[in-house]
């Protein structure tokens, strides 16, 4: 069902990230615990290729930057020498502030990235398991190079100590658990799996309302968009039912 276009299962996407960038903020080293142990998260929204001033012709689409900073709880204890009460006093009195940063980039939809039912393997309940074939392409690798440069520039500008360089390696496909695509939305039943109201072209009473319907995924987390298309699909379904069209 839904396979008539040949698109079912294809155009799988998942965001990729460059992680692990960070270091200590020397100006904030403290001997006092902050009154509330609140982590501070931040996000720098996508601006590359979203604004003519920040055009990068080496890749399509873009990425955002994000991270957090907080007083280290006790992780620095592992790097300190010594034992006993003296060590514990040092852990409590020399509290470093850690700054972390990463970037998350958009994955382009490519036909070559797909899922299908494995012809041979089944799970514990006898259901065929998914066979997943996916990798990042030239565009993602080009974007990752730009992301790495920008992350390194920021860390240098912040002047962190004990800097941990951001990874140059793209995160594993699927690691970010933002899988989208495989039942793409479109008006043309020959090129897409569901229509604009998430109804499968081949069976209008079957709706696919998760991230599978995404044609592109942007660089942000997909949940709110999934909720929005689901609400729209449900409202349309209710309207159609009231009109007697189902």
């Amino acid at each position, binding site marked *: 069902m839904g396979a008539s276009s040949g698109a079912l299962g294809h155009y799988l996407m998942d965001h990729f990230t460059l992680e692990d960038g960070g270091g200590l903020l020397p100006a904030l080293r403290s001997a006092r615990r902050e009154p509330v142990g*609140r982590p501070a998260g931040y996000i720098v929204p996508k601006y590359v290729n979203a604004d003519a001033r920040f055009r990068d012709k080496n890749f399509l689409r873009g990425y955002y930057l994000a991270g957090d900073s907080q007083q280290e709880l006790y992780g620095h204890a592992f790097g300190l020498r010594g034992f006993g009460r003296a060590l514990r006093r040092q852990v409590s009195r020399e509290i470093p502030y850690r700054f972390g940063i990463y970037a998350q980039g958009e994955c382009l939809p490519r036909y070559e990235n797909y899922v299908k039912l494995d012809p041979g393997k089944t799970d514990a309940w006898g259901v065929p398991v998914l066979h997943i074939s996916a990798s990042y392409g030239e565009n993602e690798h080009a974007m990752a190079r730009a992301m790495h440069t920008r992350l390194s520039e920021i860390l240098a500008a912040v002047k962190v100590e004990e800097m941990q360089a951001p990874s140059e390696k793209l995160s594993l496909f699927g690691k970010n658990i933002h899988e989208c695509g495989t039942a793409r939305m479109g008006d043309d039943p020959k090129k897409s799996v569901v229509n604009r109201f998430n109804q499968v072209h081949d069976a209008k009473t079957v709706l696919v309302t998760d991230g599978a319907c995404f044609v592109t995924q942007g660089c942000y987390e997909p949940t709110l968009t999934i909720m929005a298309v689901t609400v729209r699909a449900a409202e349309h379904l209710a309207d159609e039912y009231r009109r007697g069209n189902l």
Partner: protein
Amino acid sequence: MDAEDLSRRVWLLRLGGGALLAGCSGIDLGAADGAKLPPGLYEPSIDHLAHVLRPAAKDVKPSVPLFFDAAEYRQLQALVARMLGEDPRTPPVPEITAWIDLTVYDAAEVRRAARSLSAEHRALAVGFYGEAAVQELETRDVQEICRAGLARLNGEPSVSLESLEAKGDVFIAWLRHRAIEGFYTSEAGLKELDYKGHSFYNVSPGCDR
């Protein structure tokens, strides 16, 4: 305690305590022990709640060593106490020692599981954690490191921890890491850090819309 001081743990305790008092939780405090999951894994939610509530139970029994024999266990407990500057019999040293014993007990099974990964799962693990971390899980014999380390220390009882650390003693480095981890995740350690847990504003300051 005002609303801002209410940590997630305190909320959980109150929620769980209320549910138990009401007699409607269905929570079996022994369930965590009986869970048939691989070593180191817990069922989410219920097991964690049971674990959090467990210290409140009055009939907590002293730990029975799982891996070390009685003499080794006493030696281990004394070492942990020295590393932390605490009395071996006073909390949190006994509970940290029990946790280390459990970790070492589980180590062989964890290593066996790591070695039996399929090629695809191993590649996935390397993708997540890196080759060095996966190799360490596959090859590092923590049980042997501990047994040999304790036996070696038996032969030189007056040796200082500092000199062993300076020499890069593998057992001392491993145990120091576990003792620090155990202490700063114990009630006493968190209190010493003045850690109040994650908490959040109900309304963001300066943002009235």
